[in-house]
């Protein structure tokens, strides 16, 4: 036992610990200092947490698309951020049309459902075309080839949207019922849109998880992700299952696109990039290929990004800590990868399939 442990512990591991340990010390010291100083009220922390949960729910929805496709094809679908963007964009057109015709004010629930439906269908359409045109012909090619294709497809989609609709930010119309806030208990205030984001994401994730665990297609997806040839020997049409996997991931991304746009009130051709990278980070954090891992990783990253800068850095007298939220997010990715290369829930998946 001990010998095995010692053998595993080599010089490069040691140097990683040397980098990781001070960062963790800094986080602990900074958090204590911030809490001791007490510049922030409970209500402010509450706001940070709720915002983090909402943001994290969106990351989680997108992260599921990365993780599902990775699980089944061992490929990072870098164009997934554009699947998200396409949904948000399609949602924008429907939303502004419905807003102009006043339908969104008279029938807000139906209006929102239509926006979501169109966004989801658009994302699904884009993802299915991607799979068919860009990825399927490369199924037997070396792994680097579809990866490069995915990056190319990502640019192609971005600049197609830019060419068609311009590069300016489109402002999402306001939806009256989503404006305003609810007050909970003493003085905790929560925005309605944040409630919608968190609840919708939770329902979608629960739905997805049940689908993968319980339905025939979901079980076949898990079988295909373990071994495609053996799955085919069971009578499973592997290509059809792969398409359905893309469909599921894209549907979640389309919904996430609308939620994101409703929260930040804008859409633009490049809007998928940052959330896409963050969601990919979340998927890796949770253990890529692992469905609950992507959910956990997304929510965790959102919270960390929202609460982290202030909590860790304010007490250390760093000015404007919130500007550093991306640094914090990616530092955490590095830390997790140093101490747990397979991600939070990564099992032995990464090693077994590598």
């Amino acid at each position: 036992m001990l010998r095995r442990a010692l053998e595993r512990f080599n010089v490069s591991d040691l140097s990683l610990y040397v980098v990781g340990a001070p960062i963790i010390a800094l986080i602990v010291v900074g958090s204590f200092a911030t809490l001791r100083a007490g510049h922030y009220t409970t209500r402010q922390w509450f706001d940070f947490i709720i915002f983090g949960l909402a943001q994290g729910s969106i990351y989680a929805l997108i992260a599921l698309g990365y993780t599902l496709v990775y699980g089944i094809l061992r490929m990072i679908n870098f164009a997934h951020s554009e699947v998200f963007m396409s949904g948000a964009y399609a949602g924008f057109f429907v939303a502004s049309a419905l807003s102009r015709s006043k339908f969104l004010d008279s029938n807000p629930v139906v209006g929102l459902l239509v926006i979501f439906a169109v966004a989801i269908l658009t994302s699904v359409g884009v993802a299915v075309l991607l799979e068919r045109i860009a990825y399927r012909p490369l199924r037997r090619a070396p792994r680097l080839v579809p990866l490069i294709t995915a990056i190319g497809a990502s640019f192609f989609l971005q600049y197609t949207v830019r060419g068609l609709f311009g590069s300016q930010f489109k402002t999402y119309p306001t939806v009256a019922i989503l404006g305003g806030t609810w007050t909970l208990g003493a003085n905790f205030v929560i925005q309605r849109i944040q409630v919608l984001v968190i609840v919708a994401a939770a329902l979608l994730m629960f739905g997805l998880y049940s689908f993968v665990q319980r339905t025939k297609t979901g079980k076949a997806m898990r079988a295909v992700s373990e071994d495609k040839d053996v799955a085919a020997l069971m009578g499973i049409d592997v290509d059809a299952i792969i398409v359905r996997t893309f469909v599921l991931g894209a549907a979640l991304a389309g919904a996430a696109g609308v939620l994101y746009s409703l929260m930040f009130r804008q859409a633009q051709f490049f809007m998928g990039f940052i959330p896409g990278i963050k969601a990919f980070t979340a998927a890796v954090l949770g253990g890529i290929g692992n469905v609950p891992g992507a959910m956990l990783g997304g929510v965790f990253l959102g919270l960390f990004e929202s609460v982290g800068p202030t909590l860790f850095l304010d007490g250390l007298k760093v000015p404007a800590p919130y500007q550093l939220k991306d640094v914090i997010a990616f530092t955490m990715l590095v830390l997790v990868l140093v101490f747990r290369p397979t991600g939070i829930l990564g099992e032995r998946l990464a090693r077994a399939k590598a």
Partner: protein
Amino acid sequence: MALLEVENVHTYYGNIHALKGVSLTVNEGEIVTLIGANGAGKSTMLKTISGLLRPREGTIRLAGEEMSHYKAHEIVGKGVVQVPEGRKIFGRLTVTENLEMGAFSKVDGAAIAEDMQRVFALFPRLKERRHQLGGTLSGGEQQMLATGRGLMARPRVLLMDEPSMGLAPILVQSIFATLQQLHRAGTTILLVEQNARIALQVADRGYVIQTGEVILSDTAENLRRNEMVRKAYLGIS
């Protein structure tokens, strides 16, 4: 007309010519064995029949119907079902889910449930472990699961690739007893084995394959007596 007819099949891995014109037949209700040494091309033959590999030349027919243009999953639907070498059960699916995957080409839920009960009757061990993940089973239990999973597809022809591989002799006996039981119930089996001794005990007929070519075919009884087979495959001088 034989149920399964393989005629002059050539299969390649890139430039490697793995099957060089193999022909064999399996009649309804028979156990036919394909024996041969490591790397002779036995698994390649089964993968070609199952559609995982495409023959470059030759034909494969099931009850007279040409099969080689069907995809692997469609061939299962036609009733040609393979239990692959090394069992290849789904380690992160439960025993029940593995069996359900075996029945993937079936749609009648009641019939599937009935078949599962039949598999559990054949392998009571699997019933005890039905909620366990496939990856936690022992080698013998995995072979039972792989066989049961194959039966869930209600095969017209069951292709078995080295069921004895890596199992203790007592487990080998029990797996082959099960094969005989299936045979008596009318299942048609093409059995690939390195363990020629036990394969020739249960089979009706056999083919000997060597570097991608069938060098001998006869009844199992005659093959057991054949001088060359005794020397090369049964280790008797």
